[in-house]
């Protein structure tokens, strides 16, 4: 499977792997402590500080690495939460049909009609923003999108004869969902997962930039942009590094998602 990877997917895989490894081994590779002031304000890049320092003299590379850790951790957890809830509920709705489907789908429509950023702002203004609350809020808000996709895919699959055969055998809901439908719905869901992960990265960065996401002294990419945005007025590029990181990670993950989509939804294979 790893042979014949198109160039674009290879680039995507490499860059994404670098970001994830940096996040996982942050403690090992970061040159300084996360909140340690080690130099002057907004020092230019040098041998000691590869990316220079930030607005209170912390090493920017260190901040970027720890920031990446927080951002990627929250985005990953929120994506997993959003997919498990969204897909499970979507499958249940599709397989059950009737009024269960109606109630669930209309509730989801209701939530989707409120812009999720505004909803998140409202909720976070009343509760404390920790990693856990952020993951739960982001994950649940996003699961409405996953629900819609999972339901649409599962509705198609649930009318197949093999699902009917399983029902006639007397199988319970769990078997039908996890053994008959899920394996056949996996490829569109996995491709979607890549895209949703990126939306999560953007979402958490947006929240932090607005000051209600990850709270200092914890670093995250959106927060670093916020902290250093004044520097742009003085020609200091510190705020641009996290922007570049967000952009490259987004594009890389999208390249992988495209590749998975291409592999699994070719004209010949369908969902096969």
């Amino acid at each position: 499977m790893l042979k014949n990877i198109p160039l674009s997917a290879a680039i995507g895989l490499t860059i994404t792997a670098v970001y994830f490894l940096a996040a996982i081994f942050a403690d090992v590779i970061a040159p300084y402590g996360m909140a340690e002031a080690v130099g002057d304000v907004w020092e230019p890049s040098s041998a000691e500080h590869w990316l220079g320092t930030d607005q209170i003299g912390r090493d920017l590379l260190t901040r970027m690495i720890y920031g990446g850790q927080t951002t990627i951790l929250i985005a990953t957890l929120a994506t997993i939460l959003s997919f498990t809830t969204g897909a499970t509920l979507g499958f249940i709705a599709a397989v059950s049909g009737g009024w269960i489907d109606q109630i669930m789908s209309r509730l989801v429509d209701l939530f989707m009609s409120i812009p999720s950023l505004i909803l998140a702002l409202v909720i976070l203004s009343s509760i404390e923003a920790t990693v856990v609350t952020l993951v739960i809020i982001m994950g649940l808000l996003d699961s409405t999108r996953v629900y819609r996709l999972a339901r649409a895919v599962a509705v198609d699959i649930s009318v197949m004869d093999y699902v009917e055969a399983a029902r006639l055998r007397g199988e319970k809901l769990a078997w039908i969902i996890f053994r008959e439908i899920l394996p056949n719905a996996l490829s569109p869901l996995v491709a979607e997962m890549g895209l949703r992960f990126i939306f999560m990265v953007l979402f958490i960065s947006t929240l932090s930039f607005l000051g209600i996401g990850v709270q200092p002294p914890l670093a995250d990419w959106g927060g670093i942009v916020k902290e250093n945005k004044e520097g742009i007025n003085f020609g200091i590029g510190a705020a641009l590094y996290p922007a570049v990181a967000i952009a490259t990670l987004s594009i890389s993950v999208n390249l992988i998602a495209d590749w998975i989509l291409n592999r699994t939804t070719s004209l010949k294979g369908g969902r096969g």
Partner: protein
Amino acid sequence: MTTPLLQVRGLKIGATVYPPGEKPHDIEIVHGVDFDVEAGKVLGLIGESGAGKSTIGLAAMAYGRGGVELTGGSVTVNGRDVLKASTRDVRRLRGAEVTYVSQSAAASFNPAKRIMEQVIEAAVLQGKFSKSDAEVRAVELFSKLGLPDPENIGNRYPHQVSGGQLQRCMTALALCPEPDLVVFDEPTTALDVTTQIDVLKAIKDAIRDTGVAALYITHDLAVVAQVSDHIMVLRHGDMVEYGTTDEIINSPKEEYTQALVSVRSIKHIEKQPTDAILSVSGITARYAGTKFDVLHDVSVDISAGQTLAVVGESGSGKSTLARVITGLLPPREGSITFAGRTLSPDQPSRSREDLRELQMIYQMADTAMNPRQTVGTIIGRPLEFYFGLKGAEKQKRIQELLDEIELGDGFQDRYPAELSGGQKQRVCIARALAAKPKLIICDEVTSALDPLVADGILKLLLDLQKREDVAYLFITHDLATVRAIADSIAVMYQGRVQRYGTKSEVLSPPFDDYTDLLLSSVPEMKLGWLEEVIAHRKMESAGN
């Protein structure tokens, strides 16, 4: 010697395949085929699916469908090699000299345009006729093809005529530009037998009257025997046998052709009815949200260890009956008794024992098996689910079942995509058998298969019945299948049981009108059958 109208020499056709996980590569699907069609003659191309018959038919129009490429040889129409011709010349050819009738007229007509517009389109575009002349010609063709109200039928939209009528409209479309050659690609396969016979007759007369030559493609030898002068038998892209229709039907030389001719010659002696395992009484049913009944007061019995065939054309309610029996569609009235117990009308409230003893096999084995499960999982699940078998014991039983369906070793770890059509259907049979059922509902289980493969499946089902003493409710539209395997028969028409009894009772006169029509419409493997039937019907109607 004059050159024939269509001369095909060493025709090779290739295609690019895209197997998952591998690099795309080219394969050859037709390996050098030669044949001629003389002006005014009909050549039948016959073979199972994948034999390359449609591809060869389209090659006569210098066309390759999808990724198909005409890689070698020559196709000469009226003395010109059309494979080497320029795009412009090929355009002059298609729709003027050679025309095409496809299998599904319903999918081929543009639903947004009136029939007349589409019938005359090619003739007018190719400059053969003016619009008004073409319309006059179209009306002539409509009446020649036996369409009702030929003057006005062209003003209708495609959805306003029946399937058989639309197929005849398509024949008119193909004949309208006065072509030299028409390619008929399975024109009657999608039709019911009772409709097929009219369309077949119309096509045959139209060919004779207009003096056009034709390539007639089908998988049904009995059908092609009625219309063609010569027959070419194809298999895996190679010619197997070529001869006059008489030679092929009455003295086939090749083993494969002999097998095709003698298909459905299974002998099955009917058993006398015994105690009923399943009794359906007074079932009336309709689908949710509709206002009419699909089944009216249907009552049938199935004897233990025997086969009840339910026959009828599409829309007669046979599959709905299966849905009622399985509990997927609770009936409005009536009751079902199974193995001495009254079955609950809706499936979720049935006991596990009821579910186990009543199994089902579907028409499309492709969609009846989860593509992401191995054969071992598919067959093993009922064992695990109903009998709690695990580990080595389960493996052993799976292998036994695979042996029973004549698949043998090495199939447990395969995925459905790695099986042929016949093998898939066998796995579905094994899955049903795994539950040790008393009754299996077989819904058109052979109609998606090639005749020889279907024969194998029917033989297997009969064998299994003897060994396992299982009863079958066999739903089919194919009377030849019914003759082969049934002990008793229920003929259904418009949601009612028209005729019901043992096989010999149902298949011997006196017949009611519908059963007579149905029985006489089944193509027989002999020359002149079509004329006999039509003459017989004319006499009958004259007699009335």
